C-alpha cells in the first residue's frame, strides 16, 4: 500500500517534483563533476605545472669554473631514477623531461662589428616537453642532434634581425658554424635573449667533448615524491649538486591548495542552491498537502506514517536526481578534462554513491516545509483554516 500511495503522490505532484528533480539533478551533476575533478586534480594539475619548466637542477658541486665539467652520460642515470624502485609499492616521482645544457658566449654579425650572444646547447625534444608554454613563431626543432637549425629568443631575434628561415653564423674561439632559424621563441625569461642550438653543435663549436654545464629536470609528483627523488638522485650522483627549485614547488602546492579550496567552496554553493531549489518546490507542495495531511491524521494516520510518504517523495527526488546527476557529472568531468587538461579524467565510481548521499542530505534539508507538515492539526484543516 505504501508504494501504491507513493506512486500516486509522485504522479499527482509531478510538476513541482520535476522542478525539485531538476534542481537536484543539476546540482548533483556539477558537484559530481567537480568532486571527480578534485580526485584527479593533484595528478592533473601537477601534470600541467610540469609544463612550466624544470623543478630540479643538477650541476657540478664546484661550479665556479665556467667550463662545463659534467659528463653528459649523467642524463641516462637521471632518467632511469624516474622509474619506481623495483619491488617498491610506493609511488615514485616521474621524470617528465631532462635536458642537458651548455652555455657559450659566442659572437655573431659581421667580423668587423661582432655582436655577443649567449648560445645554449641542449636537447630540443626534452626542452619542448619541459617548456610547452613557450610560444614559438615558426617551428620547434624535433631532432635532438639537428646541427643545421637553431631557435632564437625573441629579444635576440629582434636585435639581430632574425626571422624563421634566416641564416645566422655563430663564432667561438676562431671556429664558426651556420644555422637556419627554425623558430623564434618567446619564453618570458632570460631564454628570450639566447640562441638555442643542439647539444652536439654547441659542444662541437666550443670543443667541449661530451661535457655539459648542468641538467634541468622536470619531475612530476607530490612534494614528498620530489624530495625522495632528489635524495635518491643525490646519492646516485656523487660530486654533483642536485637541488629542487623550492620556490616553484611551493608555488605549485599553494596553487593546488587554492584550486582545491575553490572547488570545495563552489561545491558548497551549488549544494546550497540545490537545497534552495528543492525548498522552493516543496514550499508550494507543502501548502497543497496540508489538507491531505490533516485528513490522513483525522482518519488515524500517525505522524510517522503520514510523513513517511512525503519524506519518501523527497528521498525519491534525491536518489533519482543524485544518480542521474552523478552520471551526468562524471561525463561532464570527462568533457572538462578534455577541454582544460587535454587529458581524460578517470571517472571514479565512488563519486556516484557519494553524490547520492550528499543529495539525500540536500533534499531532506530542502524538504523542510514538508517536514513541518507533521505539525498540522487535523481539526484546523477540517474547519477549513
Amino acid at each position, binding site marked *: *500500500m505504501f508504494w501504491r*500511495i507513493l506512486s500516486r*503522490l509522485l504522479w*499527482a505532484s509531478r510538476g513541482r517534483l520535476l522542478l525539485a528533480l531538476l534542481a537536484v539533478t543539476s546540482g548533483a551533476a556539477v558537484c559530481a563533476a567537480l568532486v571527480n575533478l578534485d580526485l584527479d586534480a593533484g595528478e592533473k594539475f601537477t601534470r600541467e605545472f610540469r609544463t612550466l619548466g624544470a623543478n630540479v637542477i643538477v650541476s657540478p658541486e664546484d661550479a665556479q669554473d665556467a667550463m662545463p665539467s659534467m659528463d653528459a652520460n649523467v642524463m641516462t642515470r637521471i632518467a632511469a631514477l624516474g622509474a619506481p624502485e623495483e619491488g617498491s609499492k610506493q609511488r615514485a616521482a616521474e621524470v617528465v623531461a631532462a635536458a642537458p645544457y651548455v652555455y657559450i658566449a659566442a659572437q655573431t654579425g659581421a667580423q668587423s662589428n661582432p655582436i655577443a650572444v649567449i648560445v645554449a646547447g641542449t636537447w630540443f625534444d626534452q626542452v619542448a616537453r619541459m617548456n610547452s608554454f613557450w610560444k614559438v613563431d615558426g617551428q620547434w626543432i624535433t631532432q635532438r642532434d639537428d646541427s643545421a637549425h637553431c631557435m632564437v629568443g625573441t629579444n635576440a631575434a629582434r636585435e639581430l634581425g632574425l626571422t624563421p628561415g634566416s641564416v645566422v653564423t655563430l663564432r667561438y674561439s676562431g671556429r664558426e658554424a651556420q644555422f637556419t632559424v627554425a623558430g623564434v621563441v618567446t619564453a618570458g625569461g632570460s631564454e628570450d635573449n639566447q640562441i638555442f642550438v643542439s647539444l652536439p653543435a654547441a659542444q662541437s663549436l666550443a670543443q667541449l667533448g661530451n661535457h655539459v654545464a648542468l641538467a634541468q629536470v622536470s619531475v612530476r609528483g607530490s612534494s614528498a615524491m620530489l624530495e625522495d627523488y632528489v635524495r635518491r638522485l643525490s646519492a646516485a650522483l656523487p660530486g654533483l649538486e642536485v637541488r629542487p627549485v623550492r620556490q616553484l614547488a611551493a608555488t605549485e602546492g599553494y596553487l593546488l591548495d587554492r584550486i582545491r579550496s575553490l572547488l570545495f567552496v563552489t561545491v558548497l554553493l551549488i549544494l546550497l542552491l540545490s537545497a534552495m531549489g528543492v525548498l522552493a518546490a516543496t514550499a508550494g507542495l507543502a501548502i497543497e498537502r496540508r489538507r491531505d495531511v490533516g485528513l490522513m491524521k483525522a482518519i*488515524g*494516520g*500517525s*505522524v510517522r*506514517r503520514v510523513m513517511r510518504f512525503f519524506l519518501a517523495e523527497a528521498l525519491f527526488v534525491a536518489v533519482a536526481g543524485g544518480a542521474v546527476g552523478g552520471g551526468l557529472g562524471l561525463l561532464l568531468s570527462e568533457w572538462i578534462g578534455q577541454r582544460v587538461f587535454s587529458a581524460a579524467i578517470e571517472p571514479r565510481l565512488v563519486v556516484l554513491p557519494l553524490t547520492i548521499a550528499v543529495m539525500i542530505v540536500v533534499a531532506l534539508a530542502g524538504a523542510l516545509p514538508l517536514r513541518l507538515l507533521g505539525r498540522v492539526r487535523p481539526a484546523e484543516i477540517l474547519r477549513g483554516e
Partner: protein
Amino acid sequence: MPPIVQADCLTKAFQSVRALDDVSFDVAEGEWIAIMGPSGSGKTTLINILGGLDQPTSGRAVVDGVEVGSLNERGLTRYRSEKIGFVFQQFHLVPYLSAVENVMLAQYFHSMADERQAAEALVRVGLGERLEHLPTQLSGGEQQRVALARALINHPKLILADEPTGNLDEANERIVLDLLCELHDAGHTILLVTHSAEIGRMADRRIELAHGRLAQIAANRR
C-alpha cells in the same frame, strides 16, 4: 450496560469565545443521536472533541471506556483509527487516490490494507462499479458513500457524521440516509450533526445546542 459515550461538563474555549459550555450527556451503544442547533452553537466542536481531533478546555469525554482528553498524540492517533469513523460534510477524500484506495488508506493506518475487503465495503454502499474512479470522477453522493465505506472499514465503535448530507441533492441525501439507517439497524452507534429537523427526527434522540450550551435533549417518537 455502561454508556458508550459520556460527556461530562465539556467546555471548549477559543480565547474569549466559549464554543462549548459545560455540556454533559450520555449515549448508549447502538443509539443514533442527532446533534442540532444553529451555526456556531458548538456542534462541530463537540464532534471534534469526541473524535479526538480537539481537546476540551475542561470536562471529560469518555468513549468506550477511554478518556479522550488524557490521551497523548500517539494515543489519539490510535483512538481515531480504532474507535472512530468520521464522515464529513465536505467528503474529504484524498483526491489522487481512487475510491478503493481511499478506503484502503484507512485500513493501512489501522493495520493492514486489504483491497478485497475495501472493494466489498464499496459494493455494500453501491459503488461496485466505481472502485477505480478518482474522487473528481464521482458525484457528491458517490463521494460521500466512499467516505461512509472508509468510515466503516475498521469497524469503529462510534460513527461521527458532521452534516453528511449538507452538500448533497435530495436523491443522494436519501441514499446516504438510507445507508445510515442500515448502519443503525445493524447496531452501530451514530452521532450525526444536522440542521435538518427531518433528519433529526430519524435519530433516537436529539441533542440541541445553543451558544455552546446544552439547550435540550429530546427523545424521538418512533
